[in-house]
């Protein structure tokens, strides 16, 4: 049977009324649990997986797809409204999204996130269906030296989040890199900077840092200025929906985000964070209103959100074709598939084509359901900001600490959370950007192990990075991206002097 035929069959199963109801329930509870800060999509899916056990295989697969997309979307809602990213991939969303929400534009921010996620997931799911076997052949060729090249590119793009002062941006990045050292080294098992505290051996959780710096740091900062300069976020200003201009500024970032997110997500160690940084940087460069970045530019929400969701579909490529879970969420999904007797792996597409297409159809339906249910809910979500400030921040702190504790119920984790909150407050007070710290914590350990794995494979020969064309090109791109702005500046100055 050919692919299209199987896909149609899958859809005919998925659009039965009962299955649509399951999709709706899955999306709703996925969103409801996913919005809790600190509880990312992985934990959401893990927690709600047992719910699907009780259904017949078709219905449960669809509900499962709904939970997955709901959990993904839920993380960005709190990032936008409460400046509390639920997971590391929505850190970038918080940068512009929360600025928009504070200015009364939370509605359009949530809408562009939802529609962008929808568009990205739609395209990426189609990509998954038709390109997966091809894409995976390229992905496994990605060696440690190539990852190192990719990390260098990612590091260069981080400067977009630095704000006015490079020194302060680099300091924030350095803080994140330093935190990334803490814990057991992955390659040798050597403990770094743990000072004998066993709870530190696993390193610092990205969500703990993000929630501490963003949510708790923000609460402290707001409290410190509440008496002198009360700053009340506006729940709604202007239309709650996207205006014509919003649409015009959103659709290209959606597509670009998808193009960046899907292939990087398909890499075995690509992840969802790097595409969001890359997308943010790209939109900032391409925007016709770059001056709005930092004060609430809609492109800065649309692009990264699309990239995030596209990379989530991308992680399904190695998962389905190799049985290779490349993220925590994917690992949980793998357990879910096994329960439906789908054994992901090289034989899946040929032996169980029907199941694959049924899953693809379910993902499509869940995706549509997410949009249908969440767009009307936006009006309700933005009302969260109408809660009186004392209760709003009280609630934020309770939910933030709860998420951290549910993932890891230890006092050390809470102390870290509070400590990061204080640092986040000081960084805000003295005008240091907080996002680079989170980026440093994510990229630092990845770059460290990619570099050292490469050197271990080459027995210490650094030429390994230049001998392989792919990594040599990426290193060259990173170098150019780093040097070019200075050259252009120099050139512009030179021309000015000529005049």
């Amino acid at each position, binding site marked *: 049977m050919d692919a299209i035929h199987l896909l149609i069959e899958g859809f005919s199963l998925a659009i039965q009324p009962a299955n649509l109801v399951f999709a709706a329930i899955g999306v709703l*509870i996925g969103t409801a649990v996913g919005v809790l800060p600190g509880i990312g999509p992985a934990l959401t899916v893990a*927690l709600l997986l047992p719910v699907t056990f*009780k259904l017949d295989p078709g219905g449960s697969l669809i509900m499962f797809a709904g939970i997955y997309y709901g959990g993904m979307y839920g993380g960005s809602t709190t990032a936008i409204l409460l400046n509390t990213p639920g997971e590391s991939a929505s850190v970038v969303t918080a940068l512009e999204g929360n600025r928009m929400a504070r200015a009364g534009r939370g509605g359009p921010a949530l809408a562009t996130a939802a529609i962008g996620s929808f568009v990205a997931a739609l395209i990426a799911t189609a990509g998954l269906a038709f390109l997966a076997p091809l894409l995976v052949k390229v992905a496994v060729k990605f060696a440690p030296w190539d990852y190192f090249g990719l990390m260098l590119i990612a590091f260069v793009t981080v400067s977009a989040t630095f704000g006015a002062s490079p020194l302060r941006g680099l300091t924030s990045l350095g803080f994140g890199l330093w935190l990334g050292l803490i814990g057991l080294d992955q390659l040798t098992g050597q403990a770094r900077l743990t000072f004998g505290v066993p709870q530190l051996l696993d390193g610092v959780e990205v969500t703990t840092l993000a929630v501490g710096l963003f949510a708790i740091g923000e609460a402290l900062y707001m409290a410190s200025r509440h008496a002198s300069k009360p700053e009340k976020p506006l729940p709604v200003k202007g239309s709650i929906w996207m205006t014509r201009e919003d649409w015009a500024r959103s659709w290209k970032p959606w597509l670009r985000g998808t193009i960046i997110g899907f292939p990087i997500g398909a890499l*075995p160690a690509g992840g969802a964070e790097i595409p969001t940084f890359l997308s943010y940087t790209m939109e900032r460069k391409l925007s016709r209103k770059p001056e709005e970045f930092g004060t609430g530019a809609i492109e800065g929400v649309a692009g990264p959100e699309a990239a995030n969701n596209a990379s989530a579909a991308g992680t399904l490529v190695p998962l389905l074709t190799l049985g290779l879970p490349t993220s925590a969420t994917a690992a949980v999904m793998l357990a879910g598939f096994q329960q439906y007797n789908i054994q992901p792996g*090289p034989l899946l597409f040929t032996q169980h084509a029907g199941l694959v297409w049924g899953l693809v159809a379910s993902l499509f339906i869940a995706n549509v359901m997410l949009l249908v249910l969440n767009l009307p809910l936006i009006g*309700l979500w933005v009302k969260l900001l109408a809660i009186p400030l004392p209760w709003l921040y009280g609630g934020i702190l309770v939910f933030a600490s709860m998420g951290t504790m549910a993932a890891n119920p230890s006092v050390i984790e809470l102390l870290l959370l509070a400590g990061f909150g204080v640092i986040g407050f000081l960084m805000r007070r003295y005008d240091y950007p907080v996002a680079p710290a989170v980026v440093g914590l994510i990229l630092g350990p990845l770059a460290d192990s990619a570099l050292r794995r490469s050197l271990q494979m080459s027995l210490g020969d650094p030429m390994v990075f230049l001998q392989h064309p792919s990594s040599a090109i990426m290193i060259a791109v990173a170098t150019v991206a780093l040097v070019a702005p200075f050259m252009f500046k120099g050139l512009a100055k030179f021309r000015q002097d000529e005049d």
Partner: protein
Amino acid sequence: MRQFLKSAFCVAALTGIMFQTAPLAASELELTIMAPAGAGGGWDSAARSLQEVMMATGQAKSVQVINVPGAGGTVGLAQFVGNANGASDQLLLAGITLVGASISNNSPVDLTQVTPIARLTGDPLVIVVPKDSPIKTIDDLLATIKKDVATAIWVGGSAGGADHILAALVTKAAGADPSKVNYIAYSGGGEALAAMLGGQATAGVSGYGEWQGQIESGDLRALAISYPEPIDGIEAKPLKAQGLDIELVNWRGIFADPDVKGADLEALKSAVGNTVQSKEWKDLIKARGWADYYAPADEFKTFIASETDRVRSILTSIGLAK
């Protein structure tokens, strides 16, 4: 907030309906199983599987799973031992990784300090090479290692874990210095798989189940499994059957409070024993792709002692323990 609470209530009501399970009866045991790892991992899913079957078969009235992640399980183990008071309702699920982690992290507590109840599952490890590799047999691999131990690149799971240990044992069996093994640790079998398929490594080690698909499709060539006996449905022969005196099983077991005694201990042993001999348990581990490796408490106790000594001596030889 009110709106949020309202929606939380709706969800609560909804999920409440779906979580309802009909208890089958009898036992009054109300247990808590600690999985010393995060939700979603191997120990967590084993703990939750045990929870499911114990409640379904009526061996326990209620079972709760708590996750205490950290440092290969040593954080959870330390907490479990630290809170010990002879309680008859506390269980801990752990495995060989915790034995290694306790040693390499210099943890003050190890698994010999808790009360073994039963060994549950044991998964074989597999040694593979890429399909285009000139290495066809385990003897070819040994010869390659002997020729130049540095360029024989191994990939597998975390440093000091079962995969690393097996690579060191094979290197030693080849007559090379195990401290010179060029083992590249990845965060799990998944990422290591990509390195294998990309042809960046000479050989790889992982749990058989994780790489089963690639072995069956011919993308990877399995040279041997580390299980002592041949396993139905696995073509690769045990190392022991191929003339190497090496066996290593990724086992998981269940433990109780260090001070639990007498009738309480017997009740736990029989509840777990009945559970793992039920049809439900056998079906479940089969569906999960785990191998049954059940051993009752006494046998498990001597096993723990010998595993601890063995793992320590291997980790010392590869320089990860003193």
